[in-house]
């Protein structure tokens, strides 16, 4: 346990620079985008409604409605781009977390595999690091929402503005509700699926590292096929038991919560299988 925590600490120490860069980039980009888009909208309202149509502010508010943060940012890819970028960078970092220790002039993996503790410590430390990085980025996004809200408020005259709280902001932007689910069930579901995905990715990396390129990639494909089979098992059974035309009926026969429970159970099995395979490879098959 002690060495596991030390490994997590060390991995986080190695990750703080890219994480800080990502946070900085998110802050600067989102602030700039909020100010730019909001000012554009205010200018548009002033030009089109208040000047050309000579509407009073009260009439504008009555007919069109106040300008809200969500109206301005809704479906704007520029606003969600830093979040997508964060997800992509973290996904790449998940792979980099293993390969940087193997590739290059210095083979840190020698030292890591020769630590006098179970190799599962190393595996779980890397898995925990990814989870903590994701949570750090999400927490950062939450922390800057009031700042973004303030930037919005500063860019729109009071009488035209619809005030929103940071929580309302988080609940209105679709992508944010994905990374910041508002109830614990969704939280467990999204992050559980995410971690199962990372476990599958790790199993693939360790297959490749254990059996090297050709056999490793072949093993990876077989493993992904097994997982695919497992995840689509209900559909496959349905296909075998009923005529294709009845498939829809088969799915409809399950309530949504039943379907989610079934899929969650299968994802949990896939996650557990991936963790077991990874630990087996690390203990018995890994090669440097």
């Amino acid at each position, binding site marked *: 346990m002690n060495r596991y925590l030390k490994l997590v600490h060390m991995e986080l120490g190695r990750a703080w620079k890219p994480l800080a860069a990502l946070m900085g980039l998110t802050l600067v980009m989102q602030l700039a985008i909020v100010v730019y888009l909001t000012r554009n909208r205010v200018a548009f309202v002033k030009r089109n409604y208040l000047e050309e149509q000579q509407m009073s502010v009260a009439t504008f508010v009555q007919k069109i409605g106040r300008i809200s943060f969500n109206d301005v940012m809704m479906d704007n890819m520029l606003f969600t781009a830093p979040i997508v970028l964060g997800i992509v960078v973290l996904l790449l970092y998940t792979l980099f977390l293993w390969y940087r220790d193997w590739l290059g*002039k210095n083979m840190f993996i020698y030292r890591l595999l*020769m*630590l*006098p*503790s179970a190799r599962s410590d190393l595996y779980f430390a890397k898995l925990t690091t990814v989870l903590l990085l994701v949570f750090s980025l999400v927490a950062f996004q939450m922390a800057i929402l009031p700042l973004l809200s303030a930037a919005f408020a500063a860019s729109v005259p009071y009488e035209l503005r619809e005030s929103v709280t940071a929580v309302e902001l988080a609940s209105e932007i679709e992508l944010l509700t994905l990374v910041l689910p508002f109830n614990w069930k969704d939280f467990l579901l999204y992050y559980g699926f995410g971690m199962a995905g990372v476990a599958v990715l790790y199993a693939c990396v360790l297959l490749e590292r254990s059996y090297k390129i050709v056999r490793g990639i072949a093993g990876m494909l077989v493993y992904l096929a097994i997982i695919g089979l497992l995840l689509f098992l209900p559909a496959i059974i349905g296909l075998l038991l009923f005529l294709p035309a009845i498939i829809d009926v088969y799915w409809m026969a399950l309530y949504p919560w039943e379907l989610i429970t079934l899929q969650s159970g299968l994802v949990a099995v896939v996650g557990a299988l991936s963790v077991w395979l990874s630990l087996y490879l690390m203990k018995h098959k890994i090669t440097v």
Partner: protein
Amino acid sequence: MIRVEHVRKRFGRKQVLRDISMEARRGEITCLVGTNGSGKSTLLRAIMGLTPLSGGRVEVDGAAFHHGMYEKVAFIPDTLTMPPGMTVRACMTFMQDFYRSWEAARGEELLAFFKLDPASRVGSLSKGTAAKLNLVLGLGLNADYVLMDEPFSGIDLFSREHIASVFASELIEDRGVLFTTHEIQDVEHLIDKVVMLDQGVIAKEFYCEDIRQREGKSVLDVMREVYQA
């Protein structure tokens, strides 16, 4: 004692080690020699559990190798085992954090012996200095056995002499050393035992003193007989 019994290792279709059995005892310096590709490095990595065996077993003091053994068996590979961004000092702290058998005072002594700057970054070290840092990290452990893969490879004459002097020092005393080298002439006078590998099998195994006394031959003479026959 490190005991290797009927060890086999295959990489795909290539059989790298074929039924290797040997021993390396405490208090002895054992040298694994062989031509390129003879399986020396693979054998060391197999002993350390860094590559899975295709067959056979490895024992340390009568017990099967397990992760706790990394406290008592140190391995010094021919590549740096620390991230390039770390300083030499941070490497020492890392070792102290993770190994109970790390001896901080000995680590400092080794740093001074090799004249390493604790503030240097690992990524900026020359090949010779990197080899010295590797030795510091391996010998700073209070391990009963030290395995070294090509400790003299690609480094200048003076660094080589410096490293070779470690073999005659109290840093090695009482430990079991198993190492590979191509520069046998530099350390021949320090070696107790030689194991010659050829195409994955042990071609010859002998104590240097015996062969000198019985046959009046140096290790190089025997190597010529074995590899040029």
